[in-house]
């Protein structure tokens, strides 16, 4: 059975579809940059969802055009919230990419599993504990990818 192509189906499907694709992307991505991108997508979906929560049939935008009798307006509150949410989203995104830049400089990779492994090794080294041997490192040491010389920012160690 194909459901009728009602506007709410389209719009909700879009909002939730974007959210879901975004979340799936975050889960499935191996590349950290794609994870950030996926988050952006998911946020877009949720923003749409918020606006939908205030949408009203046959209403106008919430701006007064004339004094006196007002036509029905859509709900302004969700719109204000979405404004806030969009800006918050971009702030987080900017922060995320700047951290990515640093990780790329230090670890020469953005593969999440490799980053996680390097992080574990780093923490263990700082703490002075022997690393737990995992299935990912079955026999002895698995060499981690060396940091290629050309990628190293010579001034990257200033902080």
């Amino acid at each position, binding site marked *: 059975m194909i459901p009728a192509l009602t506007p709410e189906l389209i719009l909700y499907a879009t909002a939730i579809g974007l959210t879901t694709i975004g*979340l799936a992307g975050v889960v499935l991505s191996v590349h950290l940059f794609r994870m950030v991108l996926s988050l952006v997508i998911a946020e877009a979906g949720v923003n749409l969802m918020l606006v939908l929560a205030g949408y009203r049939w046959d209403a106008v935008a919430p701006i007064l055009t004339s004094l006196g009798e007002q036509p029905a307006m859509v709900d302004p509150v969700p719109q204000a919230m979405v404004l806030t949410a969009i800006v918050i989203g971009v702030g987080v995104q900017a922060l995320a990419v700047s951290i990515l830049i640093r990780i790329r400089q230090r670890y020469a990779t953005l593969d999440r599993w490799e980053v996680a492994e390097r992080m574990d090794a780093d923490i263990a080294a700082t703490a002075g504990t022997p690393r737990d041997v*995992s299935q990912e490192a079955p026999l002895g040491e698995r060499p981690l990818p060396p940091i290629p010389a050309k990628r190293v920012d010579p001034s990257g160690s200033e902080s």
Partner: protein
Amino acid sequence: MTLTLLDELLLFSGATLLVALFIGRGLAAGWMVTILYGGQLLTLLKMAALGYGGGIIASSLSFTVMGQNLSWRFDALSWFFALITLGSALLSSWFACGAWERSYAKQGGNIWLFHLAMALNVLSMLILLASGDLLSLFIGWELVSWAGFLLMALAGGVATQAAMRYITYAMAGGMAIFGGLALVYSSSGSLQLDAVLIAVESMSTTKLWLLVILFGGGFGVKMGLLPFHLWQAPAYAETPGPGSAFLGAISSRMGLFAILLVLVKLFGIVNIDSLKIPFTLIDARDLLAWIAVFTIIFPTFTAMKQNDARHLLAWHGIGQGGYMLLGVVVADAMGGAGGLLHVFNHATYQAALFMAVTAVIHRTGTADLNKLGGLVVRMPLSFMVLLIGIIGLAGLPPMNGFVSKWLVYRSLLNEGMPLLFLAAVIGTLGTILSVYKLIHNIFLGQLRVEHEQVKEAPWSMMAPMLILAAIIFITGLFPGIPLAWVASVQEVVGLPATDYTLGGVESVSGSLDMIWVIGVLFAGFGIGAVIFYSAGRSKRVHQLDNYAGGHFLSADVRYQYSDNFYAGLMHLVGGWYRGSFLWLEKSVISLIDFLSLVMQGLYRRANAEFYLLSTALFVMAWVVI
């Protein structure tokens, strides 16, 4: 506000703690603390009316926290246990003063911490004994647990490991009690004893079962009941000398105190008797009795295997706890009296034995039964004390252990429990064998070369040992003295009171008069001595005046029987205790270890976002469907 006698006692004990804390580093601090213990004991004796059926003495200390009333008071039960606590604390502390302290400090021990830990233990035990409701009972319980941990962990190294094991067991027990407390609270709405007494009557069988298991298990951990006994021997044995005398004498009896208070007094033996185990003929009470019997047998035979005198004694301490519980669970006048009297008797001879062994360690530097022997010629008084102690431990006349064990046996026979009786006798057999190993390997046989110059223990140590030996004999001769206290304890916890006389018990179901028994015994000794000396044909030979295989042995070759004692017997029974309890303990630990590994993997190697997504999916699906 006037101070009651109990207030005085607690304040006195607190003052002792403060003295140990602040001036415990000074010279003669040990003597000061010992005198203060003596003062506490005197205060306790001022309450002696409690031991003879006097009324309850309440403390004026009581407060309300989060709607819970906390109060403290003393009755005959508390008084009886407090007497043993303070007595053993006084004598152990006395024992520690002087020579032992000096050598302990010389070996790098911290004597300040030792006295502090002792004082803390005594105070917390008094608080526990004074508890007037279940909540204060639990508070005291935990205090005792942690104070004991401090004393056990003092020596460092192996001792700390043993203490760690102890505290893990104790925490598990404590949490079982905590859970039981919560269950009780949910049905009574209060933790006051009166309220609980009423609530017990209307509890469902399931709940009562659960409570018996939780409380029995929780208190049993401290008593060292099977299968929770593994921690006790190493923990007590590795405690610094006088500390192990103190702990061995009283610490694990706190478990019995709590069992008496909660299981016997509050729940009532009758209620426990009504808890049938489905599909079998036995009930919860029988279960407890059998646990007690196995607690007698297994640790006793394990003790036989030990090659360290302290460990041997500590294992016996576990086993003797079984007699006490057995007597209490039988719950007739004689059994109860036997169990309770055994608490007192055990404290006296256990303390004496640990002290004697510590004296030997003090002089020779070792407690290894394979490296000692023949010390009787060098330390005759210590030998005497040890001898008296093991006679008490083995439950032979004329010492006090005989009385309490006789009472327990008699009650088992009276109540028609021959299997339990048989098992208890097997336990006693093991006791006799292993205490023989103890005295033989230390004091009998040939003196080792390296111990030629050993002297008798110093008088600071000898005095408390002799006092204990005297008590062991006197209470063996006049068991009526402690039996008077025991009778009032029985009354308080709701057991039938025994009819005692100065020399023992006098009732229709059985009588014992130790004055007569000992009289006959000594008369026999006297006759033997008369025969021996009147014959007059004895000849004194030197210990080394020996033959072996027809050859003279030169003086530098010593003939030691002590190494690998009971090898043949061990071979016979060894298969029976291959350490199944140890295996149980290890498997629990490795299970936790494994689960821990899994959980760490969950956090460290996993895809967090995936968890999030799947959780979201599951909860949403749950909502929709």
